């Protein structure tokens, strides 16, 4: 260990380092140890081993902070930080990656594109997410963002023989690059203002200026545009439905949950760090964006016939709800954001799991009609899908209710009554289209009698997602405490 790479640096970097090394090792092992297609599913076990080590190091982070009474530990001269916020979000990424890997092998075998690179890309994308959540330096955050994004571009286009997958990857790549351009422009103005890339220095230079200062506003506006692109909030949402529909369903699940959670971690770091002093400028902008996201997301979802597209629009509206927690901005609101991200992870993954199970040989199974009569041919899946839909709509006793409850509570506490009323009205709209799926499953006649694809990994994944969706709803206390530790001090 030298002065450039100290013990502390190593300790803080460990989860990201493990993910990177295991990811690179996956690429090596793939053609060296498991060249045969039927053994490729062993790589799922390998990925879970990687996540176990990562989880252990995250656990050590938590205990280290608690034992030493610290709130954060800074490493790499302020480039990387280990605090409750980064640990919380990294647990979310870890859970997402494990569930996605569990459901992927069967799906990829059916699609005929089961390659080891897929698992390597999951791990490397997750290490990008680590740098997004733990980075406190513009360059580190940006490199992490691009690491995650490039992995996702490849995964979205993973079905190379499928034109839709290629088209989705192309659209996602072009719009992703376009939005990164905005972000870099905003970052460069921030650097020009403060002469430093550390978030704390930039925060100080924002605080020293008038919030309506033109240069500060230019930095804020371009950065916010880039950030809103990444979380697919209206009016920067156009890429989401196309990318979600064309991507392999397992990747759509990863994209809609992992990438969104990471982008929210990034957004919170920027808004609560450098931009915290200009709250009076961005609060009205975010209120407008949140209301628009809920409006467009919910209304456009009504007329969709493709379930993946429907869930894409629903995820746009969920991004609007999560933004509301940031708009309220008190402790309840920020805790609400954390708990909403956690809840959204499991319920949205769960909904996609059922869509993945509908994909069988020669049956695409993505339309609402493909779900018709699911109750009669796969009652287990139908009941679980009902739980996920109830949760997405925000009905007690599921987890979705807890998420929405804290968001609404924080809006009330901070006096945003009109916003709260608008958000509550859109819940009613959301119930309509979620229950269209439910009606199709329980009321319609069976249109396609082929049994559902079920693998061991799928069963485990769906049980875990449903179990947690119910558990967070019925006994939220431990999860709320977890969210409490995630607040940025």
């Amino acid at each position, binding site marked *: 260990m030298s002065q450039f790479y100290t013990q502390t640096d190593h300790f803080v970097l460990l989860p990201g380092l493990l993910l990177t090394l295991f990811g690179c090792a996956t690429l090596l092992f793939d053609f060296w140890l498991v060249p045969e297609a039927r053994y490729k599913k062993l790589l799922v076990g390998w990925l879970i081993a990687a996540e176990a080590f990562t989880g252990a190091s995250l656990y050590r982070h938590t205990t280290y902070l608690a034992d030493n009474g610290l709130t954060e530990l800074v490493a790499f001269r302020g480039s990387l930080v280990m605090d409750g916020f980064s640990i919380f979000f990294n647990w979310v990424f870890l859970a997402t990656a494990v569930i996605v890997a569990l459901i992927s092998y069967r799906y990829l075998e059916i699609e005929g594109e089961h390659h080891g*690179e897929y698992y390597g*890309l999951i791990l490397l994308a997750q290490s990008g997410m680590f740098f997004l959540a733990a980075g406190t330096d513009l360059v580190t955050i940006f490199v992490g963002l691009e*690491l995650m994004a490039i992995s996702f571009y490849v995964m979205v286009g993973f079905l190379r023989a499928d034109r839709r997958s290629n088209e989705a990857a192309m659209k996602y790549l072009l719009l992703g690059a376009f939005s990164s351009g905005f972000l870099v422009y905003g970052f460069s103005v921030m650097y020009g203002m403060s002469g430093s890339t550390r978030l704390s220095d930039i925060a100080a230079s924002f605080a020293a200026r008038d919030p309506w200062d033109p240069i500060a506003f*230019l930095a804020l506006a371009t950065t916010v545009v880039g950030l809103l692109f990444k979380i697919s909030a209206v009016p920067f949402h156009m890429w989401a439905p196309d990318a979600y529909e064309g991507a392999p369903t397992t990747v759509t699940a990863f994209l809609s949950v992992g990438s969104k959670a990471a982008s929210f971690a990034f957004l919170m770091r920027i808004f609560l760090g450098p931009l915290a002093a200009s709250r009076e400028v961005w609060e009205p902008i975010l209120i407008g964006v949140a209301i628009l996201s809920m409006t467009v997301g919910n209304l456009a979802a009504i007329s969709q016939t493709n379930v993946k597209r429907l869930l894409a629009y629903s995820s746009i509206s969920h991004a609007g709800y999560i933004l509301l927690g940031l708009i309220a901005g008190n402790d309840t609101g920020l805790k609400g954001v954390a708990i909403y991200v956690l809840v959204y992870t499991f319920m949205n993954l769960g909904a996609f799991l059922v869509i993945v199970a509908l994909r069988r040989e020669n049956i695409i199974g993505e339309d609402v009609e493909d779900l018709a009569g699911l109750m009669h041919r796969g009652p287990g899946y139908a009941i679980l899908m009902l739980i996920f839909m109830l949760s997405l709509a925000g009905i007690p006793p599921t987890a979705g209710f807890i998420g929405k409850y804290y968001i609404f509570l924080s809006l009330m506490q901070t006096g945003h009554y009109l916003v709260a009323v608008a958000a509550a009205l859109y819940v009613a709209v959301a119930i309509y289209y979620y229950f269209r799926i439910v009606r199709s499953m329980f009321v319609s006649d069976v249109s396609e009698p082929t049994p559902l694809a079920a693998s061991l990994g799928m069963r485990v994944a769906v049980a875990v997602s449903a179990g947690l969706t119910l558990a967070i709803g019925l006994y939220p206390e431990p999860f709320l405490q977890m969210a409490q530790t995630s607040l940025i001090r």
Partner: protein
Amino acid sequence: MLDAIFFYTFAALTLGGGVLCITRRNAVHSAMWLVVSLLGVGGLYLLQRAEFLFAVQAVVYIGGIVVLFLFVIMLVNLDEAARQRQFNRQWLIGLGAVALVGAEVFYFLKAGADTLKLPPPAGSVSTDGNTERLADVLFSEYLLPFEVASLLLLVAIVGSVVMAKRRI
């Protein structure tokens, strides 16, 4: 004075080359205009007395990347693409939007010119040793992003192989 003349010359090269790069019909011409644009950026580095960055710009971008672009253009048959319509019909709306955003940015820069005070450079600015200082910063302050960037390139390579090869 001389600095200003050089600055505007290089800036014009950068922007003009960029515009011509995206509007030319022939892909080879686009690549050549990209060289002009990159050369303009290199000139701007030189003006800031960052000789190392200028050299890297010339060797890596102009010498390496654009030449690779040209190889790819030669390997891929683009005659068919050149005959097709390359711009969609919404260019007028696009132009309007760009003009609007451009006017906004111009206004902000104009109105904020007084407040844009760059912090004074730390210590004395030495004109020599630029390369050494860059290396110092890169391997101390920015060690982590520098290393992660190599990971980024690895993912890009793996990704392009996955996307392009028929059989993996």
